[in-house]
């Protein structure tokens, strides 16, 4: 029982194969691909313009049309086709998910790895700053930032990135610290390897799987945060559709027209769920520290 199997270093191909064996991960991947395709091909998938307030999209008393018939998912309170808006809204969610999360990931990686490797004063200062950011109620900070800069798609992405890098930084800090203490790093140092070489050739490659995992999981957080900001009316500006602002605009009608909350809500849920499923499976497949959980 002593010769334990190697705890790390999967080959990429086998990782993919192992991923393919997880039904839930595959399901997540398929749903993500479908969302991406839906977002890209939205103009061909629906006959309507997402921002067109159609005259026959509202009843005479100004109520939205229920699902069915001309409008498969019904219309919103301005008489726009809900399906069209959800399809176009996927663009917003995906762009923000990827951009915001990408920025957050870069900041988080730079801060976390630097602090974890350099230690000393620089490391301490970086980590105290991270602690400080942790102490900020993220949503409050995002709301303040969104209020300062008049929100647009890119500003929202920036705001989300600013509040979202902390987690990544912390995780990568811990991981880098423990990596830096691993014997093979010590071995590299005894061979005379410089810091940059150790960081780039030996530490970063080990962090890549974890970065991928956090990148994937982070997208779901980001999608949720965008939706929440939009739900509070400080996200993406109308009439640009985003899943969050569809709900924001229509939430008062949740009783009279539940589909206006239900469909975009399901869209958010499914996309976030898909990224979570994928990320979790990737964690099992790629991340050596989490190995052996099932």
């Amino acid at each position, binding site marked *: 029982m002593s010769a334990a199997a190697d705890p790390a270093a999967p080959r990429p191909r086998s990782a993919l194969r192992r991923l393919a064996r997880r039904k839930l991960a595959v399901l997540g991947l398929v749903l993500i691909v479908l969302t991406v395709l839906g977002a890209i091909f939205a103009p061909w998938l629906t006959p309507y313009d997402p921002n067109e307030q159609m005259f026959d999209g509202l009843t005479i008393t100004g109520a939205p049309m229920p699902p069915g018939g001309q409008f498969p998912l019904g219309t919103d309170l*301005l008489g726009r086709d809900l399906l069209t808006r959800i399809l176009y809204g996927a663009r917003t969610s995906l762009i923000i998910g990827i951009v915001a999360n990408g920025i957050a990931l870069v900041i988080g990686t730079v801060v976390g790895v630097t602090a974890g490797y350099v230690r000393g004063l620089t490391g301490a200062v970086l980590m105290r700053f991270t602690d400080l950011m942790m102490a900020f109620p993220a949503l409050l900070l995002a709301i303040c930032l969104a209020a300062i800069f*008049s929100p647009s798609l890119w500003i929202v992405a920036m705001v989300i990135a600013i509040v979202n890098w902390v987690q990544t930084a912390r995780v990568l800090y811990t991981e880098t610290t423990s990596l830096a203490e691993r014997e093979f790093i010590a071995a590299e140092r005894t061979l005379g390897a410089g810091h940059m070489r150790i960081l780039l050739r030996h530490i970063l490659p080990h962090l890549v799987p974890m970065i991928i995992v956090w990148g994937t999981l982070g997208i779901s957080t980001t999608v949720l945060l965008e939706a929440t900001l939009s739900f509070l009316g400080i996200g993406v500006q109308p009439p640009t559709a985003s899943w969050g602002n569809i709900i924001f*605009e229509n939430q*008062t009608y949740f009783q009279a027209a539940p589909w206006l909350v239900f469909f975009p809500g399901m869209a958010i849920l499914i996309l976030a769920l898909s990224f979570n499923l994928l990320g979790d499976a990737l964690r099992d497949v790629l991340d050596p520290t989490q190995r052996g959980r099932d």
Partner: protein
Amino acid sequence: MRKLLATTALLAAMAGAPALAQDYTPDPNAKEGGSITITYKDDVATLDPAIGYDWQNWSMIKSIFDGLMDYVPGTTDLRPGLAESYEISDDGMTYTFKLRPGVKFHNGREMTAEDVKYSLNRVTNPTTQSPGAGFFGAIEGYDAMADGSATELSGVSTPGESTVVIKLSRPDATFLHVMALNFASVVPQEAVEAAGADFGKQPVGTGAFKLAEWTIGQRLVFEKNADYWREGIPYLDQITFEVGQEPIVALLRLQNGEVDVPGDGIPPAKFVEVMNDPEQAARVVEGGQLHTGYITMNVTMPPFDDVKVRKAVNMAINKERIIQIINGRAVPATQPLPPSMPGYTEGYEGYKYDVEGAKALLAEAGHPDGFETELFVMNTDPNPRIAQAIQQDLSQIGIKASIQSLAQANVIAAGGEKDQAPMIWSGGMAWIADFPDASNFYGPILGCAGAVQGGWNWSWYCNEELDKEAAEADSMADPAQKDARLAKWSDVYMKIMEDAPWVPVFNEQRYTMKSARMGGDDALYVDPVSIPVNYDYVYVTE
């Protein structure tokens, strides 16, 4: 043309506003006792009459405090309040109020002329930071107060225990209305000083109700003032205000019989349902309110410096459609004044919805393909939706407006800068009149005084001639000149429409829903000054 308009206005004024002195006849069916529950979404900030300026606390303060003047319940007609009677000098520059004897504050002390003086000094003192101080600008010595060089208004004097004389620095036809504002409420000095900055949490007035309990963020309870100076008033023993309740929740609770009046009205999502149910619809009281929803166009920012462009925009807006979006709970507006405001120009049709005409006008102005601009809007429902409807209308004539949906304060800030907000949809921040007088819609929001940095005239429209005309109208303080004055105001607003700095979009209607046990005249439920209801005069039937 001008004459005709004036006459129409005069007729309207005569029909809508009977004699000033005619007071309210008590309801013979009214029952004493009982308590009601009213809900609001937003917290009540303060009950200090010098400060409170919110939707929720305005009518609450009205019930706790009294001013020298008052309105006949359910109407916009002035009647004497704490003043038993008053006299206006012939030049309209001196008002002498004779105080009602035996009026007691909630703390038991009798109200005197000194209290009136103290209250006016207090509200105009900059350290009070009253948002209503500016209303008292006509009182002699106001400027010295405002710049901090005086601590007392030189124009207010108390020749006797029960006499207050107020001298004005210019004639002001609205002065009696000003004295009926909450800001002019009479407060006892000792209670104010005892409470310090927290007077707003421990209010002491002379009103029909007194504050019994206040749990911040949850509930306020008002208790009947048994010593109230108006005989038989109020009917209710107690009113509970529950705050922090979503309008939709409030309505559902009303349907469950837990709430008597939802203070924020019927939420749009439930409106159709309620109105389609005869039993519920019967408990809805509809009335006008002194409100106009409008789009401002910044006349200093090209291309809105061109009146043709502004007219084109006026013609491009499909007001019916916008009203449809808010479930038809408004009437299309043609001019800045709402229909129930004295001075409203009857028969004026405004700019008709005419896309082709608008396009032509825009082409004439040199923008055949339209232009790009920005539309600022406050970010609470339904305003972003309305903005999107406006955006779609504008796009019909080639104007591409991008929407800036921001927090209220940020929109106000943008409007106060000369070069920031080309267009603003006023919803959520729109003008609800402080008092039922035509002048109230002019000064800060359409006059030159407001067209300054940080001002509220977001269209930056400044027509000095109209300013002069407005000043003239306001100096016609003699009641005999009332009709001539209204005619003048009507004329001012018509001229404004010529210049089209605004697109008046709609006048929101008020729909107050009440529980079955609520009694009292319907007018009390759409009281133009006490929103949602005039607490002093409503009663419960069981």
